[in-house]
C-alpha cells in the first residue's frame, strides 16, 4: 500500500505550519510508521532547524528533482527515530525551481518508500503553495485564533475547494484557554463558525514549543507537554483513530481556576 501524502498549509505566515509538520512527523514515527517530511519552502527553509537536522544536509529537494542525486540520498534520517526522514528545501534557489508536476512525481516515488509523506507548505497562495498541494491526498489548514489568520485560512480553504482538493481539516494552533475565557481571544467555536470545516485538533499555547523549536527537538517527544499531547492526538486522528478532544480548561493556574469557580 502506498503512503498518504498530507500537506499542511495556512495562507498566513508564522501560524505554526513548520512546527506542526515536525511534531506530527515525530508523533507518527514514534508509533512505528515510516515518515518522510518535505520542506516546500524553497529559499526559506526552516524544517531542518526545527527537526534539529540542519548540519546534516548534503542534498536537497531541488537536487532530487533536477537529477543530481537519488531520492534516498536526499532523505536525511532523524537522529532519534529510525524511520523518520527529512527532504530539505534548497536554500539558494526559489519556488520556481519546482513545478506542481515535479512534486507529483517526487511523491509518487516516495509512496513506495514510506507510510506517510508530510509536506510543509510555504506561506502565501502562489507558486510554492500550488507546488505543495499538487500531490496531496489530504490537506490540513492550520490557523491561530486571530482574525487575520482565520481570514487567510478562509481564502486558502476557498482555493482548495476550487481546485477540487476535497475538504481540508483544520488545526487551531496556540489557543490560550485563559484568554478565551476573558473573551480576549477567538474561541475554537468562533473559528469554526467562519471556516465551517472539520476540526482535527486544537493545540494549546505552550512555551515549551518555542524551546523545542530552538533546540531542534519537537515537543511531541515530551510525554508531559500539553502541546505535544495535542499533536500526538492529531497524529492518531490522521491514522483514523477516534480520539476525544483534550479538555483545555483543566490546566491554567490557581487564580484562573478560582475565578472560574467564582463566576459559576
Amino acid at each position: 500500500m502506498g503512503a498518504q501524502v498530507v500537506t499542511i498549509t495556512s495562507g498566513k505566515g508564522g501560524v505554526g505550519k513548520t512546527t506542526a509538520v515536525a511534531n506530527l512527523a515525530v508523533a507518527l514515527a514514534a508509533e512505528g510508521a515510516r515518515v518522510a517530511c518535505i520542506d516546500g519552502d524553497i529559499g526559506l527553509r526552516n524544517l531542518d532547524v526545527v527537526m534539529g537536522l540542519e548540519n546534516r544536509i548534503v542534498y536537497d529537494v531541488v537536487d532530487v528533482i533536477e537529477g543530481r542525486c537519488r531520492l534516498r540520498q536526499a532523505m536525511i534520517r532523524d537522529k532519534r527515530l529510525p524511520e523518520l526522514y527529512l527532504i530539505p528545501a534548497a536554500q539558494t534557489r526559489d519556488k520556481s525551481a519546482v513545478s506542481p508536476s515535479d512534486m507529483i512525481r517526487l511523491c509518487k516515488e516516495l509512496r513506495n518508500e514510506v507510510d506517510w509523506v508530510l509536506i510543509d507548505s510555504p506561506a502565501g497562495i502562489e507558486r510554492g503553495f500550488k507546488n505543495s498541494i499538487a500531490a496531496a491526498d489530504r490537506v490540513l489548514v492550520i490557523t491561530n485564533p486571530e482574525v487575520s489568520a482565520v481570514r487567510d485560512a478562509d481564502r486558502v480553504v476557498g482555493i482548495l475547494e476550487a481546485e477540487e482538493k476535497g475538504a481540508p481539516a483544520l488545526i487551531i494552533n496556540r489557543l490560550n484557554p485563559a484568554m478565551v475565557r476573558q473573551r480576549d481571544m477567538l474561541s475554537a467555536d468562533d473559528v469554526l463558525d467562519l471556516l465551517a470545516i472539520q476540526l482535527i485538533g486544537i493545540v494549546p499555547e505552550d512555551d515549551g514549543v518555542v524551546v523545542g523549536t530552538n533546540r531542534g527537538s519537537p515537543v511531541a517527544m515530551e510525554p508531559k507537554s500539553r502541546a505535544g499531547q495535542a499533536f500526538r492526538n492529531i497524529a492518531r486522528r490522521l491514522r483514523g483513530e477516534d480520539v476525544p478532544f483534550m479538555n483545555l480548561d483543566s490546566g491554567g493556574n490557581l487564580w484562573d481556576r478560582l475565578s472560574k469557580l467564582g463566576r459559576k
Partner: protein
Amino acid sequence: MNDSNSLIQIKGLRDGLLVALGDAAWDDLRAALMEQIESRGSFFQGARVALDVGGRVFRVNELSELRDTLSERGVNLWAVVSESPTTEKTAQLLGLATRVSKPRPQETALPPAEEAYPNASMWVTRTLRSGTRVEFPGHITVLGDVNPGAEVVAEGSVLVWGRARGLVHAGAGGDEAAVVCGLDLSAAQIRIGSASALPSEGRGEARPAKYFLEDGIIKSEAWQSN
C-alpha cells in the same frame, strides 16, 4: 503563424484584449494561443486577457491550469466569456469575470439589462469564502454565508440566506429599486447602486433585515414575522 491566426481572433477592448477561440480542438487552440503569445511577446506582456470560449465546457483544473500558464508568461487572464453555464460557473469559482465591458456583436441585440433581469437570477448554494467574487447581470440568491473578503455583485437584488460578512452590492448597474436582504447582514458592507452602508456601525443586531435605497441613502427595515 497563419494557421494560428485563423484559429484564434484577438480584438482590443476598453480594458484589455478579447481572445475569441475558433472552431477546433482545445489542444490545437491552446497551442495556437501559446504560439501567438510567444511570437508577439511584447504585445501580450502584462496584458489583461478575456477569453471567449463559445460553448466549450471547462473544468476547474483546466481553467486554473490555463490561468497559471498564462500568468507565467506575464499574461493576466481576467475573464472567461462563455455560452455554457458550466464554464461560467467554473470561471466564477476561480474568481474570473464572466462578462466584458464591451458586449460582443451578437449580444447587442439583447434587450437592455433592466428588461432582461427580472427573470434572470443566479442560485449560489455554497458559502462564499474570502477572495471569491460572484457577479451576475440579474438577481443573486446565496444559500450560505458570504465570508469577509468575499464579494457578491448583482445588477438586480441580492438575498443572502446565511450570514453576510463581506461585500454585498445590489443594483450594480444603477437600478435604484434593487434591495439587499438577508438573515444576518449586521457585519456586511452593503452597496446599492453607488451608495454604501456599514450596518455594523449602527446597532449591528443579528436579525433578518432588508436594505433599500431611499433618496440616495441606504435605509433598512427589520423583518417581522407577524
